[in-house]
């Protein structure tokens, strides 16, 4: 309520600074990937991503035009031009052998074999002269150091965002994710309420079992479950891999955590509120729907965020329990397919990471507002 309880200067800014430091540490890696996703594929592994933000001096190789560009002038053959295709840049030094790439300062004239000379100026213009005619289409290689401005490309995003079928797989992902988030919430919330506020035999045992089930490794469940799916599918003569199947699978895998988290929260609600509703004549169902659910929004929202995330980012479960046809392939699967077989495509990986992050972030932001402060304020006096 009282926000500024009149803190000292340090007190007031200490928090900001501390948060800033935390956020910086947490963001640097992410920022790295963001910058990486905007960089040129070849640059990624050549220089640090942070250097991409500023101009830097780099030594690069270039190739001058081939023999077809030569003109004869006073018995010498000359090739002229500018090594900067865009026409701007600043050459620091240059060389003609890769082993000594910055042998000459810009503007100097380098002597090559057979009387060939080369001059490369600061603005990138060059003059190559030779007593004999040049031969061959591949021109002379030249090495030079150049001040490179930051350069970014959206090509990676083009590749990812406009790849074929991405819209469809986005929809498929949503089709998987939304019910796979909502269903476990419903099921878990009911169970959590029962485990927290209803009395029935075996309650404690159930709570224990749920914690135990948290640890079951997903990988161990896949084969037996898929067997079961195949069995059921065969029995009813329907496909084994359906949306229903994957919803249930995600529900099953998310359920222990959901129940565990929700139960601990719901058990902490003030019992007087529940009692008061009971006296008002509300049944358990009504208490749950009208009192417990609204008061549990913060925890429901947190769980929703996580479940959404897990499902959204999942590839394994989707590949196993859902087919890989175009009407079923999820976004992660689609993006994964964009990667080369040997997986070196960091620019794609980085870009996909950013593309997939957006929807969960939206979910996070939109559910943030349910993290209400003082939801229970004013309900009971005491404590």
């Amino acid at each position, binding site marked *: 309520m009282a926000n500024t309880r009149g803190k000292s200067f340090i007190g007031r800014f200490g*928090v900001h600074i501390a948060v800033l430091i935390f956020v910086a540490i947490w963001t640097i890696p992410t920022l790295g990937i963001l910058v990486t996703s905007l960089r040129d594929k070849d640059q990624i592994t050549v220089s*640090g991503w942070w250097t991409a933000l500023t101009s830097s001096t780099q030594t690069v190789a270039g190739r001058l035009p081939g023999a077809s560009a030569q003109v004869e002038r006073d018995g010498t053959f000359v090739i002229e031009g500018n090594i900067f295709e865009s026409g701007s840049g600043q050459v620091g030094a240059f060389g003609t052998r890769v082993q000594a790439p910055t042998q000459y300062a810009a503007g100097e004239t380098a002597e090559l074999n057979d009387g060939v000379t080369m001059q490369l100026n600061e603005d990138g213009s060059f003059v190559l002269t030779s007593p004999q005619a040049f031969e061959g289409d591949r021109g002379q290689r030249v090495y030079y150091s150049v001040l490179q401005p930051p350069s970014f490309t959206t090509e990676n995003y083009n590749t990812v965002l406009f790849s074929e079928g991405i819209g469809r797989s986005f929809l498929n992902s949503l089709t998987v994710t939304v019910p796979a988030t909502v269903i476990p919430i419903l099921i878990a919330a009911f169970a959590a309420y029962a485990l927290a506020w*209803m009395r029935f035999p075996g309650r404690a045992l159930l709570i224990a079992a749920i914690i135990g*089930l948290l640890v*079951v490794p997903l*990988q161990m469940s896949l084969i037996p479950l898929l067997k079961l799916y195949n069995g059921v599918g065969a029995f009813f003569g329907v496909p084994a891999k359906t949306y229903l199947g994957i919803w249930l699978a995600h529900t099953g895998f998310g359920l222990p955590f959901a129940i565990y988290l929700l139960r601990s929260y719901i058990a902490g609600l003030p019992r007087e509120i529940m009692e008061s509703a009971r006296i008002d004549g509300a049944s358990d169902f009504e208490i749950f729907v009208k009192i417990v659910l609204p008061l549990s929004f913060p925890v429901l929202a947190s769980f929703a965020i996580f479940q959404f995330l897990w499902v959204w980012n999942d590839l394994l479960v989707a590949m196993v329990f859902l087919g890989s046809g175009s009407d079923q392939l999820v976004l992660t699967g689609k993006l994964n397919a964009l990667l080369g077989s040997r997986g070196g495509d960091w620019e794609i990986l*980085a870009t996909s990471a950013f593309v997939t992050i957006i929807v*969960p972030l939206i979910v996070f932001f939109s559910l943030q507002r349910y993290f209400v402060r003082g939801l229970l304020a004013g309900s009971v006096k005491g404590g």
Partner: protein
Amino acid sequence: MGSQIFSAILVIIVGVGGCVAYFWGANKLLDLAFPSRGVAGRAAIDNLRRQGIVRPWLFVGPALLILTVYLIYPVVDTLRLSFMDRAGQNFVGLANYQWAVGDREFRTSILNNFLWLAVVPAACTFLGLIIAVLTDKIWWGNIAKSLVFMPLAISFVGASVIWKFIYEYRAEGQTQIGILNAFIQYLGGTPQVWISIPFWNNFFLMVILIWIQTGFAMVILSSALRGIPEETIEAAVIDGANPFQIFWRIMVPQIWGTIAVVWTTITILVLKVFDIVLTMTNGQWNSQVLANLMFDWMFRGGGDFGRGAAIAVVIMLAVVPIMIWNIRQATRESGEGH
């Protein structure tokens, strides 16, 4: 596209609606079967009692069913497999467990897992709590939170790329493209191959998980923090407590239950974690952990379901102490509160 959206929405409605329909319908049915409203006296009361017996099961029923199918059944199957040979066809008794005890890699994994368990849950919970508390007080808290949350939203593959670019090693003197080594080199130090320094590399891997999971702890804890009655904090302010004291002595104890939940969840997650180890080192340089080892035997080259299952069983057994602790916690709280 339009029809796709339509069918997607339809499918979603069917899925979610079905679930809602169950709870609503089952409850309605129960009310119809044992009417309590509009029925007089004793009968209503008896019916209510019957409802009281049945209703909890209606509520936990779906959860139970799903848990049984999706988790208990696989657990049983895993147990069975752990006594079988590599193809899961012949009974071999305790051979897989005997093998595990004798296996050097297994022992390394156990040790490493202990390290992870000791560090990661504590670090995540602690950092998450601190961030949750601090961001609660500032106007840009939500922005800060979402930045800390972001790693959680990045897939493991994405995360491994990110950290590759942090730990990346280039020989001394060369342009470092890993920010950590660049920093070390900038300070005049010698670049290190972080992920291959035995023992310590465990910590460099843990940092990744901490980086990811702190957001998780933060989200849950910050929702719990907001549930703390403001008045108790005001009372403490008046009692002269400084922010640290308020934090440690008023806020933390009141959300202790949630802290336990977060801690437990991350502990269990740590037991199961393998993506990070897999993508960063695949257990080399002595950084193996149980889950990755299990995965290894199960699917990657190992091809031995028996051994994989045996390791899985060990992982599951590791949770027993946590279970006991939690049950104590739960019964204590219901003993006092109910």
